[in-house]
């Protein structure tokens, strides 16, 4: 149980908002929906459960290290245990509205809400260009430069753009 010296969870969650995916620095791990649980024990030990995004993502270990290093800077934190868990499964549906907005501002169209059926939504919904908002867009490649992105271009403003894959 929490003792007097337990670090407030709000403080830890706020600190986690400083940690970003190095390949998408606009979105922090909380807005990405990657943080499942944060627990603090009275002796300064903190446990963070992280939901891995795409399995081929090489940034995962780095993100885990940055989570640990950032929380260790908080007063009262003695030790941080980062655990990768798969229950629940991370999905793009977990991304917060703020995370989606920041992703779009970064030039990547957010994934549609998939409810576990990513391909059904991929075919059903038009994709809005993150630059001009037009939905007259065309897919060039289901696969992109990282495991989490597909490639599109806009038929109106002519910009190529990336879209976060629905998972």
């Amino acid at each position, binding site marked *: 149980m929490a003792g007097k010296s337990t670090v407030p969870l709000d403080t830890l969650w706020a600190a986690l908002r400083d940690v970003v995916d190095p390949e998408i620095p606009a979105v922090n791990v909380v807005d990405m929906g990657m943080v499942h649980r944060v627990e603090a024990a009275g002796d300064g030990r903190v446990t963070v459960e992280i939901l*891995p995004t*795409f*399995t*081929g*993502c*090489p940034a995962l*270990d780095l993100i885990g290290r940055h989570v640990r290093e950032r929380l260790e800077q908080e007063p009262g934190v003695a030790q941080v245990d980062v*655990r*990768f*868990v*798969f*229950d629940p*499964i*991370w*999905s793009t549906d977990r991304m917060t509205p703020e995370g989606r907005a920041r992703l779009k501002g970064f030039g990547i169209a957010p994934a549609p809400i998939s409810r*576990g059926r*990513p*391909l059904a939504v991929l075919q059903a919904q038009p994709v809005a260009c993150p630059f001009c908002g037009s939905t007259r867009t065309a897919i*060039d*490649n*289901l*696969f*992109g*430069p*990282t*495991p989490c992105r597909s*490639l599109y271009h806009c038929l109106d403003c002519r910009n190529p753009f990336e879209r976060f*894959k629905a*998972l």
Partner: protein
Amino acid sequence: MISTDDCPPLDAATRAALVTYLLAWADDELVLGHRDSEWTGFAPQIEEDVAFSSIAQDELGHATLLYRLVAELSDDDPDRLALRRPAADYRHAAVVERPNGDWAHTIARHYLYDLADACRTDVLCDSSYAALAGVARKMVREEHYHLMHHAVWWERLRDGTPESRARLADATRALLPPAVDLFGEMPSERVLVAVGIVPCPSGALLAEWCLHVQPLLSALDPDLLPLLESAPAPRHSRPVGQDFRALHAEMTAVSASGLGERW
């Protein structure tokens, strides 16, 4: 590391059986992922260069998950399991180590493999071992994209030109017998089936896979259908062939260099 903290402890025999089962699967994913990566810079279209590089990364990601789970279960090092075992210790099915061949062979192999992998991961989503079920559920969603990609290419090659159709049929003819061997019974698989860690024996998965493959063969060349009736060879050690010897030397070269690489 993948946490098994929430899973009940396994007795030694069950644990050993699970390690053997997962290692063979991890080796399948690693070896196929390396074959996929050989298209980087050489694929027939720039889009496919990107696609196969990304698919390779996904397969290596899946292998990483499985090696980490094995490492957790056997107190081992995932990097050692992936890259520092002698070639004779790998347990992948022969179909994944075959050289890529032409584009039709590449697509046919990957589609047949991904359909098999989908059968395997679908049932393992219901594994009684929570850590394994979680890993399987994770993979299923990513594999949707692979299946869609390969289904589109399979149809393009089948309906493209007489040459593309003939090449796809030739590749499929050569690939079906070793693809069936993906469903060979794993050593001590029965121990895992008995306790629901593996909810379904490999033989039953083969029947399921055939249901998906039959319509593909009927539409391509019905003469291929009897090839589905071959009995799968059990998964056990087999002599290391020249193809895998060369692939193993390449994929372990950086690790063996002693330069201190990290994943």
